[in-house]
């Protein structure tokens, strides 16, 4: 139990260290909506496949649209912030509006095999690498 707790903390620290060490990478370089667009995206590798994690707090599942074609994935939608009628505002930090962002994967992916999960305002896209793109082991005769 304790070992698994250490592992999860380690998982967090790995992400935080990656964030600190982030340098220009090939990712998003060819996209029109590169770094600095909403929503911010983290991409992880899991074996041969990829997982894209996107924070979209306050975006209803029905207001979110995901499309995939070839090696690109498009995430678009709207975020609505409600205010009660007749309420006086003391603090307003939450932003609302439209968003539209495209991720260009640097590898060939299987667009039909993408799975999306949306829980607690976090979207996780499980992106499988195309079968043709997976490395092959070459046997020596």
């Amino acid at each position, binding site marked *: 139990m304790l070992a*698994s707790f250490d*592992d*999860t*903390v380690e*998982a*967090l*620290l*790995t*992400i*935080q260290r*990656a*964030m600190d060490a982030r340098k220009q*990478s090939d*990712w*998003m370089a060819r996209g029109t909506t590169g*770094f*600095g*667009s*909403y*929503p*911010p*995206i*983290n*991409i*992880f*590798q*899991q074996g041969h496949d*990829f997982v894209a994690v996107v*924070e*979209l*707090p*306050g*975006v*209803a*599942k029905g207001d979110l649209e995901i499309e995939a074609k070839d090696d690109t994935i498009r995430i678009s939608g*709207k*975020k*609505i912030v409600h*205010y*009660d009628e*007749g*309420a*006086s*505002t*003391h*603090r*307003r*930090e*939450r*932003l*609302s*509006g*439209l*968003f*539209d962002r495209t991720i260009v994967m640097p590898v060939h992916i299987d667009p039909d095999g993408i799975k999306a999960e949306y*829980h*607690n*305002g*976090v979207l*996780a896209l499980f992106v499988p690498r195309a079968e043709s793109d997976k490395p092959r082991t070459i046997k020596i005769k």
Partner: protein
Amino acid sequence: MSQELPVQQKREVEKKQESTIPSRAFLPATDIFETDLALTVVLEMPGVSKESVDVSVENDMVRIEGRIDFAKYEGLQPVYTEYNIGHYVRSFQISNQIDQGAIKAEIEDGVMKLVLPKAAKAKPRRITVN
């Protein structure tokens, strides 16, 4: 509504003391508004489920703590990162005119709504002029 949504950088919590685990905590983006009946606090805490949020009221301070589940990131190797992750912590001073026993909280799509009803004596009274 046609406005394009800009990216909001996460603000890190400024700690008064160091924690034993060098993990980070962030300040959730918050809206606060007030009606005659209640003070409403809305906090954005993506990744926080209703089981992992704590709301405590002590000495006229309301403290909201949301924990994310790191276990989901186990075995994942970051290849491209744009945002940091961590728990969420934020405290607000509230007046003693809040009925502290009647505070209600709900969470949906990573957004928590905290309704702090005003105590009966704090509600405005309409005075009619004869």
